[in-house]
């Protein structure tokens, strides 16, 4: 049995929408009331990330994947719910208390062109975190750490004094990875690290990430759109829809036997060259807004199998015989 590294329970995040003070007042049943519109980015996410695995999070734009990453890293505070790292709760810590976890959890960002400070050389970018987290090291020792680190991500240490704009997108993403690795973390969140890269370079960066995982026994939370990458890279996959996890399964199970209607539609949408027999499932209906939290299942408006229960009651994640978990009444009732 795998040991859990991070446990996320009932995590919610609502952003106050950017509304002027005056427009917050509404007349409601004859009374003047103040009501703030909120955007519900996460609606109760439950997820366990096991040590040494690669958990891929997939889902359409705006379903809360990046918010999940930012809340885990402590960049934004959650509105509700808890995050545990091993057995310590970390979601409510202030900056100083969090410092202990900073070097254990790191992140690689989506845009390699914005994630490196354009006015800092590679050396400065890497030496800052190393010197910051290891104040006892001398400047020389810091440099001795940077050289092998750069070499290990395939950047020649002689390029240490170059600025980010002199590198290609793939090289920059590898420098970002080196920066994340510089503090020797256990857990790395990668927020669509490949989406800005060429396909050939994607493979390069992906392979590097896999090598590093083996080398340092890393745990990844990998956020992506690319289902081909997921199939190749993930241990388990979490499918998100509108701020909730709707299906969590090992990669093999998910791709061979998707259960949630949304997952089925998602997988059927992968374009294939070999055969055209599987027609993509077309989802009808609008993507609901995140302004109002829906009562019942989040997928109700577009689900072909929705029944009255789906409009009334929110489904829980229920473990299936093949060890996957699905949040769907239809699957639970055996209608699907």
């Amino acid at each position: 049995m795998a040991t859990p590294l991070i446990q996320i329970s009932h995590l919610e995040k609502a952003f106050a929408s950017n509304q002027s003070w005056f427009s917050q007042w509404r007349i409601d049943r004859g009374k003047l009331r103040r009501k703030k519109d909120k955007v519900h980015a996460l609606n109760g996410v439950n997820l366990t990330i096991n040590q040494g695995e690669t958990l891929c999070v997939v889902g359409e734009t705006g379903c809360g994947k990046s918010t999940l990453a930012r809340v885990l890293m402590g960049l934004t505070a959650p509105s509700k719910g808890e995050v545990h790292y091993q057995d310590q709760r970390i979601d409510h810590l202030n900056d100083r208390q969090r410092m202990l976890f900073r070097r254990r959890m790191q992140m690689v960002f989506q845009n390699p062109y914005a994630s490196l400070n354009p006015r800092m050389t590679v050396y400065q970018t890497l030496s800052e975190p190393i010197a910051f987290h290891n104040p006892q090291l001398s400047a020389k020792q810091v440099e001795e750490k940077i050289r092998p680190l750069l070499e290990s991500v395939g950047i020649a240490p002689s390029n240490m004094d170059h600025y980010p704009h002199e590198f290609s997108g793939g090289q920059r993403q590898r420098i970002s990875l080196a920066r994340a690795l510089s503090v020797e973390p256990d857990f790395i969140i990668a927020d669509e690290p490949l989406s800005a890269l060429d396909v050939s370079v994607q493979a390069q960066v992906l392979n590097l990430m896999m090598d590093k995982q083996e080398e340092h026994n890393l745990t990844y939370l990998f956020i992506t759109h690319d289902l081909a990458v997921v199939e190749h890279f993930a241990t388990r996959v979490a499918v998100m829809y509108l701020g909730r996890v709707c299906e969590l399964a090992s990669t093999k199970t998910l791709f061979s036997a998707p259960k949630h209607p949304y997952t089925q539609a998602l997988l059927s949408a992968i374009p294939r060259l070999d055969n055209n027999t599987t027609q993509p499932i077309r989802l009808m209906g609008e993507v609901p807004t995140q302004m109002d939290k829906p009562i019942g299942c989040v997928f109700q408006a577009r689900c072909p199998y929705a029944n009255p229960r789906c409009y009334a009651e929110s489904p829980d994640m229920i473990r299936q015989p093949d060890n996957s978990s699905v949040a769907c009444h239809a699957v639970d009732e055996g209608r699907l």
Partner: protein
Amino acid sequence: MRYFKKDIITPAQSSRWSHIWAGFIGDKLATLALAIFVFYCLVAIFAPLLAPYNINNPNFMDLENAEIAPFWISGDSRFLLGTDAQGRDMLSVILYGTRLSLTIGVCAVLIQTALGICIGLISGYLGGRTDNFLMRCADIQLSLSTMMVAIVFLAIFQAMFGMAMYQQLAMLMLILVIGLAEWPLFARTIRASVLAEKQKEYVDAARIMGISPKRIMFKHILPNTLTPVLVIFTVQISNAIVAEAALSFLGLGMPANDPSLGALISVGFSYMFSGSWWICVIPSVTLIILILVMNMLGDGLRDHLNPKTYKD
């Protein structure tokens, strides 16, 4: 394609600056402005060496030499630009006056910049209520004109501490008043750039590393916001010099025995119609050229630092 060895070795940051520098030098107007500005600066710095007379010497003022026209009219080779009503050599007085005006201008703008950078960074980075409060303060400050604030402030100071005290502290007071009155311009510019930079992922990356907000603000964000500041810096120096000249002209600036360019113009103005036009006109021309050059320099810098402004 062959590369020069130099191109490969030198870090790009310097090549970026050299690129801007090359463009700037190619712009004839900007180069001319820069040359004249450097000339002004040198003159201001070396005024004590260049001036034919020492203005602090008690013999400097000699009423016997009062109101001698410039050399090319009077033929008096002792006084190249003539003398004023107290018999002071105009050239020496203007050299010292330029020195004073430039010092006040640069120091006042340094205060503005320091204040503006701190407030702009804090406002942009922290956001929310702090941002609202600071920006409303800036709005209030901007709605009061600099001249009005300065006049009221300096007049009160004169009335409270007397003329003698004021004359001693005049320079310091002018620097402080002009410096404190115009910080919002810098603060707003910096804040706008900070808001744009804050969205970028390198700031998040620094936060994830646990680096303190102060260090993120000054080490990560500030260097990326300095380009527009350089432009405002030059334009603001000219504004500060103008403000100082105007205040001196109104009798609230530098005292007559330690004159800046504005004070010289003010004193000379009363002789304008008595035939001694040079007492007023020569300092005026000096001031106008200085201001023009500063503005041209600012324009040139903006054109070359910001590649998005194309000029036909």
